[in-house]
């Protein structure tokens, strides 16, 4: 493939990932085009772009998931390429095909590859055919009948019911006993239908205390395919990753090479081009099994960037433009340890309910070894339309202990008010002795976390908080408080309302 210059990229996304892509484009001298929904006219990804075009109403379906409007924006702005980020349309083969048909470069793999890896049962079959170990599971989609029951009896309970079109934990159910199987299959199919418009589900053997370890790969249009080592993403809550790190404490060089070679086999088997991630489940005996391949940039890609010194977005753009990988596997050097945590607008103390509102105060941490990938700014409104992830905080250290210490320090420095965040949960995980010991399995949070563990007393801090709040309450009563929420916010009723202390 001839090298095709890319001078202007439209980013079909929002939030921190849109900003991440814009930053690299700036460094490469590429002009950037943002698209925005009605709610996002002044969002950070719009303010950072060279050009910006509206693409519809606030719900994603009418904007960030609207292929026609995104293509129209690309055409109107004269963009050469579209970067899909992650989520939204990034793994939608029809979108990738429409981009190609419009004569634009899609920064990602071909629509055919996305389609072959998007169907999780087909992806498993493809990996198995390439000689890659997979988690024992049904060959294809199953209905609530004897085939399903037969598989479970042969392999034993517990089993996991998953959506064939799935991802993100939707349509997923653990079944521990035979009498729960039929109802779980029906419930998962119904959830899958509403989430993905596809009710097919399949069954896998369920491992009790596994680790989730994934391999980053890169492949150019000439078939050069390499891996950039692993990321362990075992710390999850309801199948959503919370903390990600590299290296994994259980992966040594030999295991890294074996997993890397296996990931490269999967990528070659589906004709992969661009950056991708092969996910594995690892059992207590360090056996690894192929789970799925993500055909896009991952949320947690900065972990790999800090450890390899590479810019994955720049490499994605170069590969999409037809350039060869500028290095071979032997040229990849790993250094130190990197850990990321996802900062989400959710209330750690109140069952992780999504938290909405205006960010009234925001100051992100800085200093040695800290990277702040953030998609929100002070004054932004966190609404109900999009994912609750606001930012990622990533730390690098020479050793795992140093990376942990830096990330903990960064989280303690993080000042964000107006919406509740999961920072207390991140701190809980990172300061837990079992995390330090490397006992990181996918059940870490269910095993160790209860909201009560956060209530350790900090008597002086609590007194200081009480003193300041009483001072402000007095100001409010006297009608001279500058801290009163703006009238445009959710403030209702009279000033004395909040003093009732609900």
């Amino acid at each position: 493939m001839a090298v095709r210059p890319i001078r202007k990229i439209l980013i079909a996304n929002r939030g921190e990932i849109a900003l991440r892509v814009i930053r690299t484009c700036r460094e490469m001298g590429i002009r950037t085009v943002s698209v925005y929904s009605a709610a996002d006219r002044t969002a950070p990804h719009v303010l950072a772009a060279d050009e910006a075009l509206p693409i519809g109403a606030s719900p994603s379906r009418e904007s960030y998931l609207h292929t026609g409007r995104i293509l129209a924006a690309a055409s109107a702005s004269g963009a050469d390429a579209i970067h899909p980020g992650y989520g939204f349309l990034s793994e939608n083969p029809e979108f990738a095909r429409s981009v190609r048909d419009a004569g634009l470069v899609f920064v990602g793999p071909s629509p055919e590859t996305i389609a072959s890896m998007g169907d999780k049962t087909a992806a498993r079959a493809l990996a198995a055919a390439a000689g890659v170990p997979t988690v024992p599971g049904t060959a294809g989609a199953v209905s609530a009948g004897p085939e399903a029951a037969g598989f479970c009896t042969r392999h034993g309970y517990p089993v996991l019911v998953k959506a064939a079109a799935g991802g993100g934990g939707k349509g997923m159910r653990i079944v521990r006993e035979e009498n729960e199987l039929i109802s779980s299959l029906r419930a998962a199919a119904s959830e899958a239908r509403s989430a993905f418009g596809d009710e097919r589900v399949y069954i896998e053997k369920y491992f009790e205390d596994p680790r989730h370890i994934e391999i980053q790969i890169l492949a150019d249009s000439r078939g050069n395919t390499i891996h950039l080592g692993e990321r362990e993403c075992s710390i999850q809550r309801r199948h959503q990753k919370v903390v990600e790190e590299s290296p994994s404490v259980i992966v040594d060089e030999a295991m890294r090479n074996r997993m890397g070679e296996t990931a490269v086999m999967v990528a070659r088997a589906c004709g992969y081009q661009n950056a991708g991630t092969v996910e594995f489940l690892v059992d207590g005996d360090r056996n690894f099994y192929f789970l799925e391949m993500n055909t896009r940039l991952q949320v947690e890609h900065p972990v790999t960037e800090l450890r390899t010194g590479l810019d994955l977005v720049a490499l994605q753009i170069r590969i999409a433009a037809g350039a060869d990988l500028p290095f071979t596997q032997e040229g990849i050097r790993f250094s130190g340890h990197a850990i990321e945590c996802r900062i989400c607008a959710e209330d750690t103390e109140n069952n992780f309910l999504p938290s909405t509102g205006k960010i009234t105060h925001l100051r992100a941490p800085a200093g040695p070894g800290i990277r702040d990938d953030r998609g929100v700014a002070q004054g932004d409104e966190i609404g109900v339309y999009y994912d609750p992830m606001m930012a990622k905080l990533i730390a690098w250290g020479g050793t795992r202990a140093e990376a942990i210490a830096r990330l903990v320090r960064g989280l303690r420095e993080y000042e964000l008010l107006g919406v509740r965040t999961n920072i207390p949960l991140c701190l809980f995980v990172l300061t837990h002795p079992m995390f330090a010991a490397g006992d990181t399995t996918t059940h870490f949070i269910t095993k160790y976390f209860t909201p009560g563990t956060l209530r350790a007393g900090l008597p002086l801090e609590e007194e200081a908080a009480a003193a300041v709040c009483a001072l402000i309450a007095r100001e409010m009563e006297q009608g001279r408080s500058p801290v009163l929420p703006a009238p445009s916010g959710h403030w209702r009723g009279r000033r004395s309302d909040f003093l009732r202390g609900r």
Partner: protein
Amino acid sequence: MSTYHVTVNGKELTVRPGADGSVSLDGKEQIHDVKRVSLTEFSVMIGTRQIKVIVSADDEGFDVIAGDFRGRVSVESERGRLLRRYARSTGESGARLEVHAPMPAMVVKLEVDVGDEVRAGQPLIVLEAMKMENELLASGSGRVKAVYAIAGKAVEKGELLLLLE
């Protein structure tokens, strides 16, 4: 001097703010040097301990970061407390449980109908916000008296969704 009952981390403190940045806590003449740094930022000295306090007010109280403490703080004035006690003693409707939307959301599904008997902990309504489905559970047992939520419709934070009795 006004008195406030401040609830922080499940504990209640009686706080009397004095003049020029001094505050007494729980009746003790514990003087704090409170300096305002910006609209929302304060520096509190307790002895030589310096604690940075950042505050955001909303219609339900305060969102606070004070050193390593992060959480909600609620404040009730002495007068407000007396009014509330009075209201309670004159008898508000007692045995009704109102279920309000905890956040702006979309109603996905109604799990109960008018007339249903529900137990505490039973799912009542499924709401979706930020791509996540959340079940609203009954905080007590009773019979569903009225359902105001409509599947597929958006609701505002605090909107009355359902009534139990």
